[in-house]
Structure formats: C-alpha cells, structure tokens
C-alpha cells in the first residue's frame, strides 16, 4: 500500500490512541454495600440536617414542592423528593465548542479533562518564584489549551489580579478565553449581575443571540456552598442566573476533610456529595430541565498545619469515591485532580498529579478539573506544567481506554505466524495497524537512550516544556474573533487586553 509520503510530510496526521469521552468507571474505591451506606447517609443529611441559608427564590420553590424548614431554620429535602429529583435530572450534559470538533457529550462515566483552577499567581518559564497573574496570562493559557490535545475544555486557569472591578474582570476573562481557544469554556462570575452583560458580549462573538444559544460555547456556574452544609448567597445567585446560558450549570463544593468536613474519609464523601446534590437541587427547583454538572470536590487538610493539601493519597482516593457516588446517581460529575502541593513542575508534582488524575479518570469522572498546569495547591499556574500535564493526561487516558480483548487482539494466529516465520512482530500487519492508533506518544517525555540524552545536552523535562511553550505561544495567535466584531466589542465593553498584546511581537514571547 502506498502511504503517500509527501502528503503525510506536508500535513502530519494527528492520530492519537486517546480522545475525549473514553468510558471510565472501572476503579471503584467503594464496594456496592459501601455505596448503599453512603447513599443512605446522604439522604439522612439532606432530610434531617438540611442546608442553611437558602436564597429566597430557592427556598420558596423548594417549599412549594414539599421541602421544609426544620426547627433550626434549615432547608430540608425529603428523601423521596431527592430521589425524584435525581431520577428527573438530565443525565447527560452536552458541551459545545466553537468548533464541533471540540463538542463534548458528558455523562455516564465518559472521561473529559478541563483546564481550570483560578490561581492567582504565575510561575514563568524557567522562574523559581511566583508573580501575580494577569489578564494576558489568562489569554496565553487559553491559547496554549487550544493546542493541547488532551485538555478538552477550558475554565478560568488564572485570575486577572490587576483588574479591580469585578464585572470588568469577568467580562475580560470571558473575552480572552474566546479569543484564545475554540474549546468549550466554563465561566466564573463574582456576582449574578455579571452574567447578562457577559452573555451580551458572547452573543456578539457568536454572531447573535440565537446563534449563541444554538451552540452555547460557554457555560456558567459556581461554588454555592459554604461547608459544612450552608448555602452561600452570592454564588447561589450566580448558579441560578447561569441557567440563562441555556447550557449545563456547573456546581462545585469543596469541603475540607478535618476542617470543614469530617476527617473520616467516608464522612467527607458523604458531606461533599450531599452538598453537591444540594447545589443541584437548588438549580433543579428553579429549572428541572437544565443539566447540572455536580462537583463534589472533597479537599483534604494537612492536619499538621491546617492547610489544604491537594497532592495527598487521601485526596486522590476520596475524590475518586466522590466520582463513584455521582456515577451511582447517574449524574454528570466533576472533581478536582492534579492539585499538587509542589511549587514547581518537579518529581513531587509529577507523582501527585498522576496519582490523583489517574484515580479520578479511572473512576469515570466526566470533567476532571484543575488537571492542567496547576501548582502550589492551586496557588499558581505554570505553562511548562501544562504542556507536561498534556503528556500525563494522554498516558492516563490511555489507561482509561484499557485493553480491548477479542479474538483478533488475543493474537493467537499472529503468534503462530511469527513463531514459524520471521521471529518478530515488527513487520506484521497488526503492528503496522496499531503502532499509531493503539499507542499514545508523549510530546515531551524523554525516551532517548542515556547516550543520546547526554549528547542532546542532558536536558530535563522542564527545559523541554519551556521550549514547547515558547514555540507555541510565539506563533499561535489565532483570529477566533474577527477584527470587525472585535472592534465592536471593544467599543461596547472595557476590554483591557490591547490588540498589540494579541499579536506576534508583543514583549511576552
């Protein structure tokens, strides 16, 4: 078969052994009986302990539907109501990219990965200390995510800390995300009143309100719970207002085991899942047709100091268990994974990230978040780390894909042919057929021989990563918002990233 050398050389094919939506769920840290006990306790919590401080619209609609306020003034959800709501809630959530290539069908244990983390610092290429993150960093991060095959969608990776006005910050963050990537983008809002003006801008980018709502390439949501078991007003309002996107609403809770959740990991799973369900129920009573991505993110405390530790074994297993529970309910799930405590992209970062991301993905998490570039317990973004994580995610997704077992792959006949033939498999049809589609190749992981590695300057992966970041970001300046629309947007909204900072020749790269 002629393979068309010239054609392939001119346009290298992108063949990968992995992709978005691989079915996960084989890792189950809880037994069937554990699941039942956790479930029962969750229902007890929601029915008897209930949630403090529901916002008026949620309280009103919940009471109308048979929920009640208990003697402590907390909103309680009867178990039948919770079970009905779970049964009624959308089980799948469709996320649109601005390019259909990036669409994601989320639900039923299908694994996807997200950038995200809302860090407030950057670790620059080659740097050994952090600096406050800016809007330009968020734009650069979006451009980089755009080119990372194993990061399937974007969320706010860093906060534009130089922008004081929160509405301006939210609008600008949405703008630079859309300018940097065609992948679906999950947005964050400091206040519910920011949702409409941001949507107005997204309508302009989409070419009209109807066009946006045909394929909403952004969605909104928030962290509506103050653990333990209390609604927070501002983010509750944001979650409810985010229904206006006509897209799935994300709801994330982050109770911290030992501090704001029980130290017993089973209790942390119960509370995180109950709180995530309480977030879902809040959206549900307002609009039962809006899909909610439930994010029970049980965090873990280092009880020596009281601070959050994202890189521990406890964090990895408790997050996987939380995913298992959301899958038990058949609802779309998200969880934070890869939130290493290491300050640089080093060995610690590597093992902590790999462990947590692998367990979350293997548990069948629909939206593995915070898995790209986060360092320092979510305090910083490193673009070097992001490109290394892209390799890591590829390898993890390959383990999620697992091993296809059938008559052909069991390879009895091939073995027989080889044993009686050439004595090796390198030239078999099977090897030729699988060498690209069955194997995932990292862009950065060093597989040279020690001699070759020394000849190439004995570089480590961080150096290689830095080169890759520079190479991509000095050349990948996409025109995802056409100049005419861009000018109109800038007339109407206070966009703080100048056009010259979005072209080659800026001082950053």
């Amino acid at each position, binding site marked *: 078969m002629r393979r068309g050398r010239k054609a392939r050389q001119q346009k290298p094919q992108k063949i990968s052994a992995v992709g978005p939506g691989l079915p996960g769920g084989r890792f189950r840290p809880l037994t069937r009986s554990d699941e039942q006990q956790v479930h029962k306790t969750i229902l007890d919590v929601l029915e008897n302990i209930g949630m403090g401080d529901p916002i008026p619209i949620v309280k009103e609609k919940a009471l109308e539907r048979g929920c009640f306020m208990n003697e402590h003034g907390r909103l309680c959800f009867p178990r039948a109501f919770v079970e009905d709501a779970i049964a009624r809630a959308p089980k799948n959530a469709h996320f649109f990219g601005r390019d259909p290539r990036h669409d994601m069908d989320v639900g039923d244990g299908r694994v996807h990965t997200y950038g995200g983390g809302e860090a407030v610092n950057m670790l620059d290429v080659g740097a050994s200390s952090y600096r406050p993150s800016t809007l330009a960093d968020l734009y650069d991060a979006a451009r980089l995510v755009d080119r990372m095959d194993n990061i399937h969608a974007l969320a706010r990776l860093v906060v534009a800390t130089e922008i004081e006005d929160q509405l301006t910050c939210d609008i600008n963050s949405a703008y630079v995300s859309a300018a940097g990537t065609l992948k679906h983008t999950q947005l964050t809002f400091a206040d519910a009143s920011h949702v409409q003006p941001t949507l107005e801008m997204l309508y302009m980018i989409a070419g009209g309100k109807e066009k946006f709502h045909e394929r909403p390439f952004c969605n909104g949501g928030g962290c509506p719970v103050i653990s333990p078991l209390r609604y927070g007003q*501002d983010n509750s309002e944001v979650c409810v207002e985010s229904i206006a996107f006509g897209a799935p609403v994300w709801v994330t809770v982050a109770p911290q085991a030992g501090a704001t959740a029980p130290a017993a990991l089973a209790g942390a799973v119960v509370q995180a899942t109950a709180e995530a369900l309480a977030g879902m129920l809040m959206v549900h009573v307002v609009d039962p047709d809006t899909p909610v991505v439930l994010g029970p993110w049980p965090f873990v405390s280092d009880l020596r100091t*009281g*601070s959050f530790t994202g890189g521990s074994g406890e964090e990895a297993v408790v997050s996987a268990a939380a995913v298992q529970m959301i899958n038990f309910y058949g609802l779309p799930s998200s969880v934070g994974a890869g939130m290493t405590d290491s300050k640089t992209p080093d060995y610690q970062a590597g093992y902590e990230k790999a462990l947590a991301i692998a367990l979350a993905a293997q548990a069948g998490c629909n939206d593995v978040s915070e898995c790209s570039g986060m360092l320092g317990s979510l305090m910083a973004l490193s673009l070097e780390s992001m490109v290394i994580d892209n390799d890591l995610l590829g390898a993890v997704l390959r383990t999620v894909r697992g091993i296809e077992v059938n008559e052909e792959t069991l390879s009895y006949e091939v073995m027989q042919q080889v044993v009686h033939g050439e004595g090796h498999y390198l030239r078999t049809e099977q090897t030729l057929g699988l060498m690209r589609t069955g194997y995932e190749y990292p862009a950065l992981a060093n597989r040279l021989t020690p001699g070759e590695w020394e000849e190439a300057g004995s570089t480590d992966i961080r150096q290689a990563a830095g080169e890759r970041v520079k190479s991509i970001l000095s050349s990948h300046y996409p025109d995802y918002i056409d100049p005419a629309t861009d000018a109109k947007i800038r007339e109407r909204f206070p966009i703080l990233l100048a056009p010259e900072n979005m072209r080659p020749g800026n001082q950053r790269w």
Partner: protein
Amino acid sequence: MTEEYDDEIILSELPDDELVEQMHDDLYDGLADEIAEGTQILLDRGWSAPQVLDKALVGGMAIVGVDFRDGILFVPEVLMAANAMKAGMAILKPILSETGAKPVGKMVIGTVKGDIHDIGKNLVGMMMEGAGFEVIDLGINVDAETYIEAIEENQANILGMSALLTTTMPYMKVVIDALQEAGIRDKYIVLVGGAPLNDEFGEMIGADAYCRDAAVAVDVAKELMAAAS
C-alpha cells in the same frame, strides 16, 4: 497505641512547682477541666492572677507553640490546648480586669466583606486565644464600619482581617483607608491573612504585617504588642 498515663494525680496535693509543671502537661494534652482546677488551686494558694497567667498558662502554651512549629503537635491538638487555656482564662479574666492588670492583648477579627471563607480566620482566633489574647470574632462578610465600631468599642489592640478570594482582598485596603480617614490608624496593629495574600500585598495596602499562618499570627502579634508598649 497511646501511652498510659497516671490519671490518679491529685492536683491539690502537688507542691507549686510540680503543679505548674503538671499544668503545662495538661495544657499540652488539652485538658480543660484540669487546667481550670489547677488555676483555681494556684489562686487559692495566694498566687496573683498575672502570675498564674504568665507561669502556668502562657508558659505552657509556649511549649505547645514550639512543638507545633516543630511538627510534633498537629493543629487539632493545638486547638484542644487553646481550649484548655481558655478554661483557665475564664477564671483569671474577672480578677485581671478587677485588679487593672494589663491583659496580653485584645484582637478584633473577621473575614472581610464579600468573603464567606472563615476556617483560617477561626484558626487564628483560636490560636490567639490560646496565647492569652482576648478575641472578638465578628464572623464573615464584615464591612469597614463594623470593624471600626468593634475595635473602638472594645478598645482592642489588634485588628485582624482575612480573605480567601482575590476579589475580596482589596477590601482590606478599604478598611485600612477608613481607619486612616477616621484618624485612628496608628492606634491599632493591623494584621492580614489568607491564602492568596503575601508580604507585598500586606505592605501595599498599609497593614502592619501579613501573617502566613495562625502560628505566625500569634508570634507577630506578640512581637508588635511588645514593640508598641
């Protein structure tokens, strides 16, 4: 797994020096009832309240502080110790204020307006109490007026503010500016803390210090109180 200790110690039978040492141990173990009992015994034996505070309680908490810093004690244990300290303070406080003795210090603390994250702030409050400070906790979502009213009304020495969100951090400056405008900024030590903060931020907004964690907050508070007096 845990070592067995002799629970049969009768505190009232111990001579003063052994009793003080036992109280240091009991603080270390977070035994509130025993600390209350020991405090009362020392007072009954004619010790002055400041003596009890200094030798038995603050002295014991200093050991706790060192072992916390060295990673021997964990946060929950330190909080138990702080709680035991508080039990002793409950007995000493009325006497101290009667005799006009100067307390270690008074702190007003709260999470700033817009922010509802309070676990770190609570930790600081408990540790400060453990070090003998009186702590007035204003809770979450605290605005400038409330802070100022509370420090003035309670004649506090220290104002502590925390924020977890970058969106709420700037409000700390609003509060400090309000103190300036009211012409009372120099009357108070202003300490700030929270995960996204750093030294530069503390300096920029005009705080006296940024405290990385609760233990640092206690040390810094003590230092600045000593420098101010």
